[in-house]
């Protein structure tokens, strides 16, 4: 028996016999002794919580291989692991806060039956050790080449995906099909699903509003077209012309990634709102009356266009660069004019890129929550509608679940379309051979069109960011341009008290909570994401496809849906973690993990597999191999996933707005609150601070992780890690 196995057996015992079985809330326990021993599963079991006692059996079974190691270790570990996990799950799901959870049990044993709270540290530790011991047992039976590290990793990641992706999603499905009491009600579901407010088409025939689903789809398609066209114009200018400000284009493509999504909407209000800067000018100079036109479809459309065009740009620039110039030269030597070449060779080759950009724009628009919330007005979309169904006056979780399913259906449908359409075609234009061709200059009319589209847009973006920069430093945009630091002082005042510094600014609470959650979730995200990538590329095991699907599923789920599903799933025992910082961290980890997985897979597939094998045959186990060979070569992917998950954790609104509490308020939700209260200056100032913090963090991460050392090959081996991952 290995030391690791023994250690996990000990931990399993500690979790059951020493640590408190229930509750993550440490404030409940007044004294240490009571906290540690009195609340343990064993003690509670003796005191009357009889359902905890069966768990004693698999723990005793684990002692047998400890006493007599020569026996059949694998069988004992596997059997007690399965039994232990099954028992914990069974008692957890059948006994809830208010007694039996299943109708059959109520009928058999009478109501309300025993009750229990959510699982705590003890339960978590014991369940984890059962899981890992099960994996050790499977490894001893020869699974995954007998590698306990690999089986345990697969087990842990799978368990996490099941708990934090599949479980919430299935809860939301169950909730949509149930009535208020939780019993199965398909007719109610059909009624909710076919509701006029969702699918109505009144706007075509009368003045009434259309259904929210049509609104969402219409906006999504509009934004997708717009971002793709603008992105293409920018990409063509950046790669195929001698435009002088290409560097600026690059900066502009990165800025929106570190901008909280609703900030652009906010800047639009400051420009075009009733008291906006531009509205004021138009009124004073030309007598154009101030209006609220920006609130509604135009505002949301413009802000999403601004926010998501860079993503289309990043996708398309890779595609445009990837087109082999030799193909165009071949076309020219066959007497095609440059316009014909562009139309018949270049454009068709860009098709997968265009489709990709289009679908990304569509999905981003569907998932966006901040801009519709700030600018939507009467134009309702699914993501905001879901939010108001949960927190608004209706408090209708079933309705939120139904809306979530529709939104989820749209996004998954978009991904499926992309897969089905692009999966069958091969557009390989980058081969292993060097390409000596020179890219064709753009045909005149294409160049002119690109410039006409891109330059006004670029100027507009610059203006928006100027507003963001200035807005924090003036008293009130549009009305009073007196320079002031008031907004910053309100938010970030630090006073000197007798006992040290006192952070009296109103924003400090949410700021510290945000930084804490982001700093905790970033390394976790990177670790789990890269581990998953390693397992997917370097190991073969049954269920690999389902495993991959699980990681990608969390990528496709819009944030609002994640938020709703988390409060539905984690508000009741056995896993009761709403209101803690933990749920925020886990939410971010599983929202952002797919990026770690993707960049990990991309980097790992560039690294020859025989490097790992060489290390293995030299006697290094997979953990050592991972630490000494794989990780040093993965540095670019580590940076990418750390940066992305940190930035996303700082800027996300959609999912967290459901999960924040007074204790764990996040910066973004705080800012949204300020916007709704009309305190634009404060909101803008806070956003500026966030952007600066993120920039600093990116530099710090780059510095801490360091460059990958590859001898003289390093010059070519660096791809832009952020380029591909700018998806929802």
């Amino acid at each position, binding site marked *: 028996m290995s030391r690791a196995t023994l250690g996990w057996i000990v931990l399993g015992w500690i979790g059951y016999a020493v640590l408190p079985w229930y509750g993550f809330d440490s404030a409940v326990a007044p004294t240490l002794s009571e906290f540690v021993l009195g609340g343990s599963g064993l003690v509670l079991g003796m005191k009357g919580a009889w359902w905890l006692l069966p768990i004693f059996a698999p723990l005793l079974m684990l002692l047998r291989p400890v006493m007599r190691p020569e026996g059949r270790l694998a069988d004992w570990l596997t059997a007690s692991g399965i039994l232990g996990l099954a028992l914990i799950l069974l008692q957890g799901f059948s006994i809830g806060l208010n007694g039996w959870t299943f109708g059959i049990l109520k009928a058999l044993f009478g109501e309300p039956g025993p009750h229990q709270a959510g699982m705590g540290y003890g339960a978590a530790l014991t369940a984890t050790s059962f899981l890992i011991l099960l994996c050790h047992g499977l490894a001893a039976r*020869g699974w995954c*080449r*007998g*590698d306990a590290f690999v089986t345990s990793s697969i087990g842990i990641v799978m368990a996490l995906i099941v708990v934090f992706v599949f479980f919430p999603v299935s809860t939301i499905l169950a909730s949509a099909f149930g009535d208020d009491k939780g019993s199965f009600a398909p007719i109610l579901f059909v009624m909710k699903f076919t509701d006029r407010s969702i699918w109505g088409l009144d706007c075509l025939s009368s003045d009434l509003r259309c259904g929210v689903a049509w609104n969402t789809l219409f906006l999504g398609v509009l934004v997708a077209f717009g971002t793709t066209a603008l992105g293409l114009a920018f990409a063509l200018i950046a790669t195929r012309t001698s435009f002088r400000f290409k560097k600026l284009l690059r900066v502009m493509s990165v800025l929106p990634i570190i901008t909280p999504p609703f900030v652009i909407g906010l800047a639009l209000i400051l420009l075009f709102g009733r008291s906006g800067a531009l509205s004021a000018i138009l009124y004073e100079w030309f007598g154009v009356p101030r209006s609220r036109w920006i609130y509604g479809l135009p505002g949301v459309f413009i802000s999403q266009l601004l926010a998501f065009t860079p993503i289309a740009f990043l996708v398309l620039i890779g595609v445009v660069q990837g087109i082999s110039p030799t193909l165009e030269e071949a076309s020219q030597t066959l007497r095609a004019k440059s316009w014909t070449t562009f139309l018949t060779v270049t454009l068709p080759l860009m098709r997968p890129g265009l489709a990709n950009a289009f679908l990304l724009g569509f999905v981003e628009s569907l998932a966006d929550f901040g801009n519709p919330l700030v600018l939507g007005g009467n134009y309702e979309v699914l993501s905001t509608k879901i939010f108001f169904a949960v927190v608004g006056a209706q408090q209708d979780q079933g309705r939120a679940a139904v809306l979530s399913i529709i939104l989820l259906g749209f996004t998954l449908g978009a991904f499926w379309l992309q897969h089905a359409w692009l999966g069958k075609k091969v557009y390989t234009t980058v081969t292993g051979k060097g390409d000596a061709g020179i890219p064709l200059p753009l045909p005149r009319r294409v160049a002119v069109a690109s410039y006409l589209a891109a330059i006004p847009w670029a100027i507009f973006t610059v203006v928006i960011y100027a507003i963001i920069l200035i807005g924090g430093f003036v008293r009130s945009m549009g009305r009073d341009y007196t320079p002031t630091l008031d907004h910053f002082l309100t938010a970030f005042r630090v006073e000197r008290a007798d006992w040290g510094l006192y952070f009296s600014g109103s924003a400090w609470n949410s700021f510290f909570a945000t930084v804490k959650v982001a700093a905790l979730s970033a390394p976790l995200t990177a670790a789990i994401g890269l581990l998953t990538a390693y397992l997917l590329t370097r190991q073969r095991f049954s269920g690999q496809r389902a495993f991959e699907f699980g990681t990608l599923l969390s990528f496709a789920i819009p944030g609002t849906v994640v938020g709703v599903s988390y409060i539905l799933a984690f508000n009741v025992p056995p896993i009761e973690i709403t209101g803690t910082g933990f749920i925020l961290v886990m939410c971010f980890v599983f929202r952002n993990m797919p990026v770690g997985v993707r960049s990990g897979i991309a980097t790992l597939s560039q690294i*020859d597999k*025989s*490097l790992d*094998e*060489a*290390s*293995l*045959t*030299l*006697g*290094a*186990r*997979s953990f*050592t191999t991972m630490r*000494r*060979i794989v990780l*040093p*070569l993965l540095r670019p992917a580590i940076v990418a996933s750390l940066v992305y998950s940190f930035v996303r954790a700082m800027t996300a609104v959609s999912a967290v707005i459901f999960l924040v509490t007074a204790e764990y308020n996040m910066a973004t939700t705080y800012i949204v609150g300020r916007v709704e209260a009309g305190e634009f200056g404060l909101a803008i100032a806070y956003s500026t601070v966030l952007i600066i913090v993120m920039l600093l963090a990116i530099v710090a991460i780059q510095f801490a992780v360091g460059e*990958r*050392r*590859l*001898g*003289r*090959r390093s010059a070519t081996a660096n791809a832009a890690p952020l380029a591909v991952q700018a998806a929802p």
Partner: protein
Amino acid sequence: MNQMSTVSSLALAGASKTSKKEAASVEFRNVTKRYGRVVAVDDVSFSIAAGELVTLLGPSGCGKTTTLRMIAGLEMASEGQILIGNRDVTHLSAADRDVSMVFQSYALFPHMSVLENVAYGPTVQGISKKEAYAMAMEKLALVGLSGLEKRAPSELSGGQQQRVAVARALVLEPQVLLFDEPLSNLDAKLRRRVREDIRELQQSLNLTVAYVTHDQEEALAVSDRIIVMSNARIAQTGTPRELYEEPADLFVADFIGDANILDGVVLDQEGSKARVRIGGITLNLPHRGASAGPVKLAVRPDAIVLNEDPSKSTAVSGVVKKASYLGTQIEYEVDSPVGNLFVVQYSRKEPIAPGTPVSIDIMEHRGVALIPGS
């Protein structure tokens, strides 16, 4: 490659000083490897004696690399037993087997120097860095790379990288050393040289070596024994000479060396010999279990003699279609009633011009074999 000539003497010195572990035998007992429905290795049994160099030879996709990787523990057998040094290692992971491997791509760690690469094995075994470096330096000297230990692998030539890979595999003094097409990334001249070096190293250090290649010439040159694989099974096992002179089937006859596969008829048997007729030529060959009736024969290209002198005419005549002059030998393609023949002739100055009628004879003592069961 100037240092390579010193390898043998250094190797001998190194062997006397460092070989503490005995070389071990390798044995496969009815091993099968499946990937889903695909059978990569099908019920294969063989053994490699300690201190022997055995080559796994076959066309790509025949299962030879999978077999090698199963010895290393990089693939796990679906069925059967694998023994190394008479110990059952079937379920042991690669890290737990005393086996090292030289990879086709060399698999040098790009983020480590040459010295760190070679010292990696001892370091992860928990040996102190100083000692690990000393062991690494010794093996680097053995392969003639002293003085290059500070370089990054990417700063070495292909041949040097290959030797780093060998040094790294040798540093733990494994019971079994595996080579996976080690020469495929080297140019033709270097290949001959390096394969001789590997053979010398193996013999002087008395290593058990399993060697995978698809190049039959390479296999013939370095091996004690060759295992020819085809379609996931072993086609034939034997010394290079046995394989060349007594191929077990059509595949082996065709794969090892060049062979003209001709139809013949066994007329009768007498003791261990049989009289076989090909066209008009009658040969006296070992019968190898063939009974009277039609049979196939493998005739090596140098066993066929062409004669353009019409006076010495034999039973079979043909016409030269092509002639290629290759310096030491001349290769012909000859059209004849018994089939299209590929003929090699040595020690001739002037090639026979295409279109010339020739008489054909087959020398029965020189590379002609009945193929059993055909």
